């Protein structure tokens, strides 16, 4: 078993990942995590439009995308990494470090801006490779490694910048982040690369051999190895991709806020993980889909923006996101527990993440906790 997200309280025996085809189509459609999260998103969105002053204004969607773009970006590789059963806690620190490198390369080393962009991207890739090498080839637990690099990359960013915050990027580039699709459109231009990247990751995860290998690693890495999945290479690629995307997010964030600071986007990785888990990805690996994650990300974005418009201070938003993070892990457990209570159901519903063992053998089903 792969146990980077180590928990004594082991996952239970249900390993089914396909839909429960003995049930009607509509049921199969509705009884999924993805559907639940989309429904929740719609409910929250409608509630916000009805009750929060200014949420239906023309700027809401525009700023919602601008402000949440880093989360949307980072959630893509994070989904793939969590499906393999690993985790990357260092993405926000990588963002800060790449932003710092962008500022330093442009203002201190006097490189042309495009070259500075290259330096920043290379920094991100190097960070990802470093994580990936330690996790994939030295077989170290990703949780420990990325807690370490979380501190390391953040510390480097702070060390390079000190108390400084580097400003003065070319206006052509900083304006680019705020450009709209067309005049009066409520979508920024940035949604196009975002959409393309999302589709690319979706195709990679759902329609390629590489992507199926990701699921296989998450479900059973031993079996994956026997079917010819190159586990180490897959993980290295995923962590490198995470570094690259974090660099893009870092560049975006620096240009959007027009400033590189050592302490930018602290704790952002938590929001990213919350969004991914909310979107139905199992923290134990092997389950989840990109459409669900997109809904999860949008949900976090809508909550963030609605609460800001409502004049709620960020600490309350943090409380809500913390609760959502806890709920996103606990809810599937509760759901399967409840569905286990309903008589006449042989097992948990389709696509429900790890559940309690089927009721027939009460004590022998897997590593049960009850003594």
């Amino acid at each position: 078993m792969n146990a980077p997200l180590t928990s004594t309280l082991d996952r239970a025996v249900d390993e089914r990942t396909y839909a429960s085809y003995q049930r009607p189509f509509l049921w199969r459609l509705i009884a999924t995590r993805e559907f639940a999260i989309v429904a929740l998103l719609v409910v929250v969105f409608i509630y916000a439009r009805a009750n929060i002053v200014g949420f239906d204004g023309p700027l809401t969607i525009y700023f919602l995308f601008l402000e949440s773009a880093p989360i949307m970006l980072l959630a893509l590789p994070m989904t793939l990494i969590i499906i393999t059963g690993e985790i990357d806690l260092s993405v926000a620190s990588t963002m800060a470090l790449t932003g710092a490198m962008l500022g330093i390369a442009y203002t201190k080393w006097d490189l042309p801006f495009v070259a500075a962009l290259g330096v920043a991207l290379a920094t991100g890739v190097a960070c990802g490779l470093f994580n990936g090498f330690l996790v994939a080839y030295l077989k170290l637990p990703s949780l420990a490694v990325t807690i370490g690099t979380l501190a390391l990359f953040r510390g480097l960013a702070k060390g390079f910048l000190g108390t400084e915050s580097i400003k003065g990027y070319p206006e052509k580039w900083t304006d680019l982040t705020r450009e709209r699709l067309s005049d009066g459109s409520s979508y920024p231009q940035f949604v196009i690369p975002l959409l393309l990247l999302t589709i690319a990751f979706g195709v990679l995860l759902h329609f390629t051999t590489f992507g199926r290998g990701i699921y296989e690693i998450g479900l059973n890495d031993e079996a994956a190895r026997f079917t010819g999945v190159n586990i180490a290479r897959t993980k290295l690629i995923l962590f490198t991709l995470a570094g690259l995307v974090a660099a893009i997010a870092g560049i975006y964030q620096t240009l959007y806020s027009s400033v590189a600071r050592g302490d930018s986007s602290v704790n952002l990785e938590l929001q990213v993980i919350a969004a991914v888990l909310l979107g139905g990805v199992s923290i134990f690996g092997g389950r989840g889909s990109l459409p669900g994650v997109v809904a999860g990300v949008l949900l976090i974005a809508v909550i963030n923006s609605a609460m800001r418009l409502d004049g709620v201070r960020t600490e309350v938003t943090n409380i809500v996101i913390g609760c959502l993070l806890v709920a996103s892990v606990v809810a599937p457990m509760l759901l399967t527990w409840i569905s286990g209570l309903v008589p006449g159901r042989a097992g948990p519903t389709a696509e429900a993440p790890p559940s309690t063992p089927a009721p027939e053998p009460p004590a022998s089903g897997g590593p049960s906790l009850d003594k």
Partner: protein
Amino acid sequence: MNTALDTPPAPTRRRPDVGHILGGLVRSREIAVLVVLLLLIAVATFKSDGFLTGDRWRDLLLTPSILMLLAAGQTMVIITRNVDLSVGSTLGLCAYATGEIMSAGHSPWLAALGGVALGAGLGAINGLIIAVARVPALVITLGTMLVYRGILLRWAGSDRVNAGELDPGFLDLGTKQILTIPVLTILSLLVVIAVGYYLRTARGGRELYAIGSDPDAAALFGLPIRRRVLGAFIASGALAGLAGVFWAARYGGVSSNAGQGIELQAVAAAVIGGVAIFGGSGSVWGAAIGAFLLVTINRVLPILGVSDFYQQAVVGALIIGAIVLDRVLSSRAERRLAVDREATS
């Protein structure tokens, strides 16, 4: 497969054998970290004359007293193959609560008790969610880290507990020294020794190691996993609460960012001190020495001419260095005979 799962459970006690004990001692992680610590202090004293005198000596001993408590709690949790990232927020919340109770005019004893009890309660919330819902500790404690900090910010706002509101006797605790050793340091050393003794000798302590080494085997053996894991989280929370009380005494005041980011240092101290992140091995003493090492490094960096903005990077590098070292040591040990495996634990 993860080799960490395959490594043997907590070392079995052997008949005393002087050569063996000496060999184990020389190769033990605790001693190795201690040697590094002493070397570091030697270098610092050589570079800067006043390193071990007066206020700097006091600070060098006083600052780890808080981190040591957190690292001890973290060790208990990590040994069971979990992790508690909410300790920094718990510390802040408990420190503020302690200050508020005292500024409301209650006795410092009651305030300290309140702080520790609040910590235990917050730890119990973590433990209950993790043990009952069987979800990974990492995610839950990341969540509660945000939630507890948010509650503190909401409660405290831009307010802070000032030294004037605290009991003078309580404040003395933060400055008093016995034979130049600060009282707080002595107190937390006593706590660490007690926790370490419990882990090493008591049945409950050994069961924590057993659970972390091989959860399945522990379940088959009939160990009360849920109860033990819950207990470890309550202990970690209570120790973080005590650390909060110490924080209030040491700094003579509490603001809402107390203890922010210290959870990483606690994990780092434990990992550097030889507590395997996969659970099942390590000791509280090692974690305590790790805490001293971390604080000392932070103090030595400026002397060596490194900007202290790099402190966090050093913490990160040390975490990574420690786990890489662990992996190297354990794979070397696996190639040797099973007897030698004891050395790496």
